Structures are given as C-alpha cells and as structure tokens.
C-alpha cells in the first residue's frame, strides 16, 4: 500500500474469467475490507487481455463495494481489447481507467 497516495494495489495474474472470478474476488476482498473512505483501490489488470461477463460482474462488485465505503477504484490496463470492453460496458464511467 502506498500510504502517501492512499492507494491500495492489487495485481491480477491474468484474464478475469468465469474460471477464476471467484478467486479474483477472494483475493480482492481483503483489500476492500482494509480500504478507507477517500482511498483508492488500484486494480492492475495489465496482465489481462480479456474479461468475460462473470469477470465483469466481479469487477463491478469491487467498484460497488469500494463505492459503499466511500473509496474509488482505478483500473490499470494495457490491452486494447480490454479498453474496448471497458468503454463498451461503460465501465469507464464507474471507475478511472488508465492505459493503454
């Protein structure tokens, strides 16, 4: 955690799909429990090129949970495909998208 910027960072190991969305949620949950009002949870999805419907649901759940605690979510992405999905699903209106 970068205390200066009040940012908690979680890095996904790959795509967020139905096969690993539960694991993703399980790994992000502790970050959500720890996060405080005004802080930002950074989801580093630079290792991901794809997100399916279940994965999107998990990301939306993270954003809503953070929002309920008065925190924000930032998505770091490097894949054009993921960027398209973020724009298409209007996820970019729910969280800050950085990259590619």
């Amino acid at each position, binding site marked *: 955690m970068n205390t200066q910027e009040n940012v908690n960072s979680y890095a996904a190991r790959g795509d967020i799909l*139905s096969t690993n969305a539960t694991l993703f949620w399980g790994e992000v949950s502790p970050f959500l429990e720890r996060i405080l009002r005004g802080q930002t949870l950074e989801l580093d999805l630079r290792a991901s090129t794809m997100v*399916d*419907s*279940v994965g*999107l*649901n998990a*990301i*939306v759940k993270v*954003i809503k949970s953070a929002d309920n605690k008065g925190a924000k979510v930032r998505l770091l992405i490097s894949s054009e*495909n993921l960027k*398209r*999905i973020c*724009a*298409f*699903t*209007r*996820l970019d*209106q*729910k969280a800050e998208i950085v990259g590619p």
Partner: protein
Amino acid sequence: MKLGKLKPRLPKLFRKKAHRPGLFDAEPVLSALDNSISNVEAAFGHLSQNISDIHERTQFLRRDCQTLLRLAGGHQNGASVLLEAAKTLEEPMAHIENSLSKRKKLGALMAECEEIADNLLHRQKDMIGKLQPLKFMLVFYKIEAANLSAEHQSTFITVSKEIMRLHQMVDETFRKNIEQLTHAKGKIAHAIRRFDHEHSKHSKEVSAQRKEISNTIATLNQQLERNSLQDTDLNHVTQSFQGAIEGLVVSLQIEDIFRQRCEAIKQSLAEKPCGISSQAWALLNARKLDTASSEIAKSSKDVEESLASILAQSNELDQVSVGMQQFEHMTASADGMVQILLESFDSMKEVFVHSEKLSNESREAVSPVKSLVEGLSVIVTEVSINIQFIALNAQVRSIQVGEGSGLEVLAARTAEISAQLRELGSSTARDIEKIQTAVESLSSLIDEDHSSNAVQSRKLEDSGSAMVEQLHQLRDQTFDSLSQVADTMNGVRSLVETGQQKLVELPSVAEQLSQCSQSIRTQTGIDKLSSTQLKKLEDEIASQIEETEKASHTSISGAKQSTATLWENDRMSAEADTPAMVAGDVELF
C-alpha cells in the same frame, strides 16, 4: 494483345527514330503502354483481391454489427432471456415481501416476549424482596428461643430451618434465574435490533431491486417497440461503410477499361489507316495517351480517396460500435439490464441467507426464555406450596407451644408472606402463560418463515443458477460480437493500408504515358505547329473518326453524334467521373 505479337506487324516507319514530320519512335510508347498495363494490373489486381476480401469482411461486419445491435438492444434472444430472468425473480421477490410483512408480526411477538420477560424479572425480584423479612425474623426468634424449654426450642429450630431452606432455595434459584433471564432478555433485545435493521434493509433492497427491474423491463419494451435497430448510429455507419466499399469496387473497374484503352492505343500504333496524314495520326495517338494518362491519374486519386474514406469510416464504425450511445440501457453494460438482473439474483440470494441467519438468531434468543420460563413455573409453584406448608406448620406448632412463645408471631408473619407470595405466584403464572404462548407463536412463526424461505431459496438456487448462466451467456455473446467487429475492422484496415501502398506506382504510370504523348508531339513537330495548322490536323482526325465510325457502324449514344461531339467525348473521357462514362469512350478506339 501481347507485345510479342504486335512487334512483327509494326511498320518500319514507326520503328525508326523520326526524321520527318509525322514520324515518331513507337517502341518506347509500346513499352510504356505494356509497363502501364502491367503496373495497373499489379496495383488494381492486388486491390481487387483485397477488395474482394474487404467486401466479404464487410458482409461479416454488417452481420456482426447487426448481431451486436440486437444483443445490445435486447432484441433477438436477449429480450426473452431478460424477461424470463425478471420473471424468475418475481416469485422470490414476492415471497420476500410477503415474508417481510409476516415478520412485522414476528417483531411484535419478540417485543412482547421481551416485555413479559421484563415483568417476570420484576416479579422474581419482588419474591426475593418479600422473603427478605423472614431472614431478620429468624435471627430475632433464635434469640427468643433461647429462653424456651428444650422441646419448644426444637420446634422453633425445625420451623426456622424450613424457613431458612426455603429462603435459600428461592434466593439461589431466583438470583440464578434472574441472571439467565436478564441475559436472555438482552439476547431478545439484540435480536429485535438486528431484526429491525435487517427488516428495513431487506425491505429497501427488495423495493429498489423491484423498481430497477421494472424500469429495466420498461426500457427494454420501449427499445423493442421503437425498433431502435433501424435508428442506430452503428446501423447508419455500417451502411455508409458498405456504400464506400461498393464505391471502391466500382472505381476499380477502371483497370479493365484502362487495359482496353492501352491495347487500343497499341493496336492503333500498329497500323496507320489510309486517308490520314502521319502527323494527324501522331496527334490522335498522343491525345489517346493523354486521355489514358488523365484517366489513370484520376482513378488512382479516386481509389486513394475511397480507401482513405473506408479507413476513416472503419474508425468511425469502431468508435460507434464501442459507444452504442443510442442505447441508454445497453444490455451488456456495467449498469445495463444483464448486470441489474445479475445483481438482483445475488441480492435475493443474500436476503435469503440473511433471513436464515436471522431466523436462527431469533430462535436462539427465544430458546433460553422458553426453558427458563418452564423452570420458573416449577419453582414458583414449589415456592408457593412450600411457604404455605411452612406457614401451616408454624401455626400448628405455635398452637402446640401455646401463646407467649413468640412462635405465633413468626407463624402469623410467615402466613402473611405466604399469602403475598401466592399472589405473586399467580400473577407470575399468568405472565408465564402469556410468555409461553408468545414464545410458542414466535417459534412457530420463525419455523414457518425459515422453512418457506428454505424452499424459495432452493428454488432460486435451482432456476436462478440456470438464468444467471443464460444472462452471462447473453453478455458473453455481446462481447464476442464486439470482438468480432474489432477483428473484422482490423482486417479491413490492414487490407486498406496494403492497398494504399500498392497505389504508389500509379502516378508514375500516368506520368510515363504523359511523357510518351509529349515525346510524340515533339518528335512529329506537332508542338511547333501554329493554331491554324493544328486546327487542320484536328479536322483531318475528325473526318477520319467519322469515316471509321461509318465503316464500322459503331453506335455510340444514339449513333448520330457529330465529330465535334466525338472530340468532346474524347476530351471528357479524361474527366469521366464514373467507369460507365469511361466505358462509353472506349468505343471510340
């Protein structure tokens, strides 16, 4: 016609370097024409192949965009899946609402239990208070008994011991009971607080979900009614995109026209017709070369513009396909119909889990009250009977001992306390009965709520899981469709970019033909002729064309065009906007 076949038939006149007016070296012209045909064939041939691919991909793209639109707008299977999902949610939602209204009764019963438990606590404290004077009286009478005979002392001691035993029993049992009842009351109070909190939370959640689903379905129906597919940016851009591709396909037809034109020039160079001067013939060929040069330059520019337009439109299509601005509630978006329904399923499941937890907590809170009350009922009865026996025994003993021993005062006081305790016991028994009834109703309601929730929860788990799966599939299909659109778009872009690279040769083709024309003019001295001489040559050419036309019975646009018109056509052909117009001019050759 191949160059190899043409060469032997070339008149010697044209093979030599020109020394006389009207003579020119045809070799470089023929070579330039062959090169031009070859270059144009290479560029347009490649483009044609690419266009065929692009065209095919455009068909896929249009199909993918339509699929994307249908999926995003909730058409096709989308609507039925969304409506079915909403219907699946209807039963558990109605159940939860019904269950929530029943829980109001449950909450009232819990509050009643808490109140009665509170009363019972007071009564037990009252009982302890009532027995308290006996403790001091015993001390007093122990002192009094010291003055009595041994027989009377023994009677005193027996009565005192009974009172002591009863006092101790009440004291110990009630204090313990009070402690437990206070704890149980605390648990009920906690359960009531939790209950109120959860009840309010669930009511709000269900109400919000219902409202959201209702709005979602209304929007979906509106979108379906509007037939918004006809009205979307994506649809418009896809149509324009396809139009641009078709335009390019038409532009590429110039390749055939150009080749025919070049072949015609080659043939024209091969044999000078009779009745026309060499200089007029050279001028005619130079002009034909000018026309071919202009045409290929213009076509090259047109194709380049078409490709640039396709590229621009593919970028626009890309943006529009991602934006889908037309749909306020796009099915696949992070706050779209699918997401709302998925969250509703999650929310309902969560409500059922919380309800079960709440039922268990309520049952746990009520359970000790139930057993405590049962125990209390036995104790109160026992205390009441015992005190009556003690009072009776004390009275009997006091009569046996006779007046003045002080035992009659103790007996009278014990009888008084016994009466008070009996009264307290009766009111306690009434409270016990009330609380037992309330606890029974409460337990029964909790069990009923628990079992009906369990049934609904299982139903939601069974049918809901399948629906959730379908909702994810619907959204995944949309993502796949979006991905296909992107892939097709990238393919089109790549093909267009390759096509653009192939076009770079074409301006040099036009330039080469133009140079050939200029060379003919220079070699034959045409460029040095006066306007009168030039006019004379033009008349000669016009006359020749007319003769040729008559001889070949060529029909062009009504067959009776003047020579002036023919010249005009020849000039205009260079500015022809469409291959169809150019095709008409080819007939001139």
